[in-house]
């Protein structure tokens, strides 16, 4: 069955540094998204990762802080730039796809998440 993986699974970083999170799917998918889950909270959409073009960001999120790449239909990265303790969260990628991940009704599936702690 299809697998969504994220690297790293967790990290502890110093303020002012940047971290790049990778999301890999083992089959081609049409849509990829990045979400943030702050401690004890629900999930908030950061952006839609568009293949071959700039990501589409939600209100409150900007490209300079969260640059996203999606070079192909199976891979995306999210960078958290110039980090502060307020960026401590779980970051999750999700996909809506075709092939083994396809749901008849477009179910959205999530990766295991990256737990980020900023000191």
């Amino acid at each position, binding site marked *: 069955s299809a697998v969504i993986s994220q690297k790293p699974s967790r990290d502890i970083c110093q303020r002012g540094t940047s971290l790049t999170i990778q999301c890999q799917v083992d089959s081609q998918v049409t*849509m990829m*998204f990045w979400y943030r*889950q702050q401690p004890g*909270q*629900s*999930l*908030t*959409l950061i952006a*839609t990762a568009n293949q071959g073009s700039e990501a589409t960001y939600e209100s409150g999120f900007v490209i300079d802080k969260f640059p996203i790449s999606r070079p192909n239909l199976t891979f995306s990265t999210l960078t958290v730039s110039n980090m502060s303790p307020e960026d401590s969260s*779980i970051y*999750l990628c*999700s996909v*809506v796809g075709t092939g083994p991940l396809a*749901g008849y*009704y*477009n*179910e*959205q*599936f*999530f*990766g*295991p*998440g990256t*737990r980020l702690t900023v000191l």
Partner: protein
Amino acid sequence: SQQGEEDPQALSIQEGENATMNCSYKTSINNLQWYRQNSGRGLVHLILIRSNEREKHSGRLRVTLDTSKKSSSLLITASRAADTASYFCATQNQGGSEKLVFGKGTKLTVNP
């Protein structure tokens, strides 16, 4: 911004009992999806219900949708300790985008 609200925010029951969680939302939707999250890990997709469906079943799970009231419920029957987790509803709103808007979640504790 959050689309909806789940209630209760927290629920504690004994093993074998049924657990019911509710979700309300504000706008017209294409579908509503329920997820489970164990201890801050990734989300596990449980069930999707479309806007023209009223009820769906999957194993011990039963989901209902009332679009007139903009609400959904998730029923877990014969709960087990392993069902202890946070449960989230998420809506895909009308308008063509696949993105999901999440509710605040219900933290379920099933006591052995």
